[in-house]
């Protein structure tokens, strides 16, 4: 049984993520946001997972969306932990991973978020 893990050839991966609470009125600041990510990594990958360097390049409090930067070898761990998260502080919540790319520029535009001007 040989396990093959693709470490990718990119040094960093950039993830555009969005935190969503069941209670829509709730907002968290950037430090709490980082704690949520750390708790998610902690519960799935323990203290070694929680020690993975994850940078928040940009955080928007209004939408609770952020651009994360993580080393390519840890990208799968982070993505997995974010997906598995279901509660923070006993409040149901979820992460939506919107875009993942090895290039930050790729997150500059997303065709999914285009607002097409249609005639009314």
């Amino acid at each position: 049984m040989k396990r093959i893990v693709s470490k990718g050839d990119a040094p960093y991966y950039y993830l555009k993520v969005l935190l969503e609470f069941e209670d829509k009125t709730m907002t968290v600041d950037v430090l709490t946001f980082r704690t949520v990510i750390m708790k998610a990594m902690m519960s799935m990958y323990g203290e070694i997972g929680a020690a993975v360097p994850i940078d928040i390049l940009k955080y928007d409090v209004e939408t609770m969306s952020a651009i994360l930067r993580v080393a390519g070898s840890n990208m799968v761990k982070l993505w997995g932990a974010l997906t598995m998260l279901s509660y923070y502080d006993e409040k149901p919540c979820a992460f939506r991973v919107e875009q993942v790319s090895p290039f930050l520029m790729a997150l500059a535009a997303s065709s999914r978020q285009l607002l097409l001007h249609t005639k009314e």
Partner: protein
Amino acid sequence: MVRFKHRYVLAELVFGNDLLVYNVTQRVVYAAVRDIIEQLHGGYGIGLFTPGMSVKYINEYTRMVMVRCRRENLKILASAIPFIKHLPDGKGGQFPCFLRTLHVGGSIKACQKWLVQHNRQVLPTLLLRCTSEEEKSRMRKSIFDSTIVKEEPWTEGKNDT
């Protein structure tokens, strides 16, 4: 045919005081290793180690334990074992103890062979720790008995006992 390959980690239990013998069971060591893996690697670690990990051998007097794991997970196990600092004593408390990895083998038999060799080497160090003459002579005798291959009946030893 596919075969599950295992690795056996042979470790020495190091207590604060060498002369104390604690009542350490396989279950206690298993729980300690499992707990430390859960602490370090979380649910992922538990998932890796639930199939395949077990404590195969324990000797309270020579303080040796043998932990088995899947071959793929050896690195994780070997790196987690040094983080064990305490073992539960069965009375709700804990005593300080760590595991010193001595050998990693591919089969129980290979580990046992190595262990016999190791115990022979360790015996003389026990001699240095003896305090009284009587203890020393008993220790010399037991070293002699275990290291010399007797080809014919050893009359001198028989006369002694």
